């Protein structure tokens, strides 16, 4: 069948690196990281059933430097995913297809994700 002989996605080692491919691959990797994080968060919420005594161990990890690093990293992966998903939805509506615009929105996504990370963390900590 012809369908079975369809080529797979471009091989990363022969694909010329550019902002669009970098964002596309990062979007997929970040998506997988995010769903693994959501799974951990689900286990975290389920673990609350074990009671306060057991929660102390989880709280120790979350209060450590590693915990803070984990949350700030998640702020970035979520920020990147939100901004790139908005970019994808704009494309679906027919906007931003021009090569130059696409490169500009790509750069905005990368820089914006770092700005959004700081904003989200500070909002969460009620610093604003």
């Amino acid at each position, binding site marked *: 069948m012809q369908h079975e002989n369809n080529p797979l996605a471009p091989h990363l080692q022969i694909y010329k690196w550019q902002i669009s491919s970098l964002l596309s691959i990062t979007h997929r990797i970040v998506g997988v990281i995010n769903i693994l994080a959501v799974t951990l968060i689900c286990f975290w*919420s389920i673990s609350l059933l074990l009671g306060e005594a057991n929660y102390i161990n989880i*709280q120790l990890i979350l209060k450590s430097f590693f915990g803070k690093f984990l*949350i700030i990293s998640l702020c970035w992966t979520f920020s990147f995913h*939100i901004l790139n998903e908005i970019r994808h939805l704009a494309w679906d509506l027919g906007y931003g297809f021009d090569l130059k615009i696409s490169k500009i929105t790509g750069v905005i996504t990368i820089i914006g994700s770092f700005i959004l990370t700081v904003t989200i963390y500070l909002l969460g900590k009620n610093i604003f």
Partner: protein
Amino acid sequence: MNASTKKWLFLKFSSAILIPLMAWFIINLSSIYDSNFGEVVNFFTTPPSKILFSLFVIFSYLFSALTISEIFEDYIKEKKIKNVANKALYLFAIVMPLLTIISIFILNL
């Protein structure tokens, strides 16, 4: 409407709903992650955060199942392996939110 169009529409619909839910959740997560047991339980069990978190989990797994199945489509050539991987993925995307939501409601009792 063919299956691929339906899948694409589901993907875009879940994506549009997930964006504000992700923003809401990550702000709250950075607020409560180092809080004590009572505050965390309070977040997961009181409305509207209980409802919004449940929706966030449902749409996260729906969206990820749809997108990861596309990654399988791109990188797995063997049809049998692809079918098994997709079935495992969809099963996980149903069981995980279900367990989480049930546990939140038990926690509330």
